[in-house]
């Protein structure tokens, strides 16, 4: 009886230690291998946030999604996180996709006007509200990877 009790307590302590260890050392989402919540166009993604930011944040934030859109330009001004901008909606709506620093050369190789497909972790909508110097609005993706790179149709 005593031996069984000791064994049960030992297993319990072992289990709790294992749980604590795995929780503390939980890995960040690996975008490359993560399951995709949804595949959508840059216009569709922007429209979802533009229509209802709260609802879109609940649906997409911290989720891995695949977004396809027209590459407007590359923003390589921050060497810690090269970024590209996809057309979202007219002159003030964009999808801003951030890559790990190792992705810099691949980002440089992209050509404005390319149709690109990006897989990334959606972080939400950065519209600056009533801040008049910050009128452009971005849906933000992080830890992105390029899944395809298609040339525009000629």
């Amino acid at each position, binding site marked *: 009886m005593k031996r069984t009790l000791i064994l049960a307590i030992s297993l319990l302590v072992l289990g709790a230690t294992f749980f604590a260890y795995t*929780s*503390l*050392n*939980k*890995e*960040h*989402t690996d975008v490359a291998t993560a399951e995709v919540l949804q595949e959508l166009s840059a216009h569709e993604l922007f429209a979802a946030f533009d229509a209802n*930011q709260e609802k879109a*944040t*609940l649906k997409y*934030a*911290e989720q891995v999604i695949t977004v396809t859109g027209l590459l407007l330009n590359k*923003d390589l*001004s*921050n060497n*810690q*996180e090269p*970024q590209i901008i996809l057309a979202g909606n007219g002159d003030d709506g964009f999808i*801003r996709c*951030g890559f790990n620093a190792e992705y810099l050369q691949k980002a440089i190789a992209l050509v404005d006007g390319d149709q690109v497909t990006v897989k990334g972790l959606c*972080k*939400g*909508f*950065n*519209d*600056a*509200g009533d*801040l*008049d*110097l*910050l009128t*452009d609005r*971005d849906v*933000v993706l*992080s830890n992105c990877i390029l899944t395809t790179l298609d040339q525009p149709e000629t």
Partner: protein
Amino acid sequence: MRQITIITLATIALFTLALTQHSGGVYKTNTGNISFFSHTPVEDIAAENHKVKTAFSSANGKLQFSVLIKDFEFEKALMQEHFNENYMESTKYPKATFNGIIENINTIKTTTQGIYTAKVSGKLTMKNVTKQVSTTATFTVKKDIVNAKAVFNVNPADYNVKIPKTVINKISDNIKISIDADYAHQH
């Protein structure tokens, strides 16, 4: 006579345009850096965000920031999760903003290379709480960019960030916020 008048007016117009572009422009970036650092004897916690949207006007000194809370990256995934879900409630309050002014904008020559000290003050909003903050920033005017760096401290309790008693000794009540942004002139 008419020709001279036209030439004079055109010259004035061009001069005015050039003056406007040089002295009254908006400088902007979407790739600014904000990091924060919490130090306690028990644990150090740091996080970074490299997609900070910020701009300033060299005409009137307005300075604005908008930053997505969920885009702060921590070394440990669990810390990041706790930061977003328990402390910042970033789904409910997705952004932090700053709306302020560079008080001595007239002394910062954005067309003359050099290092300038700026007095910055304004309203910092996080978790729907707005507080007045002020700090000193360093503006470095380079060839194509204006770099701004600033450091200031915040107390999480001031912004309704509730720290559970069980971890209160792990999170500082004086968190250091560092800003580093390269602004480009908007044409």
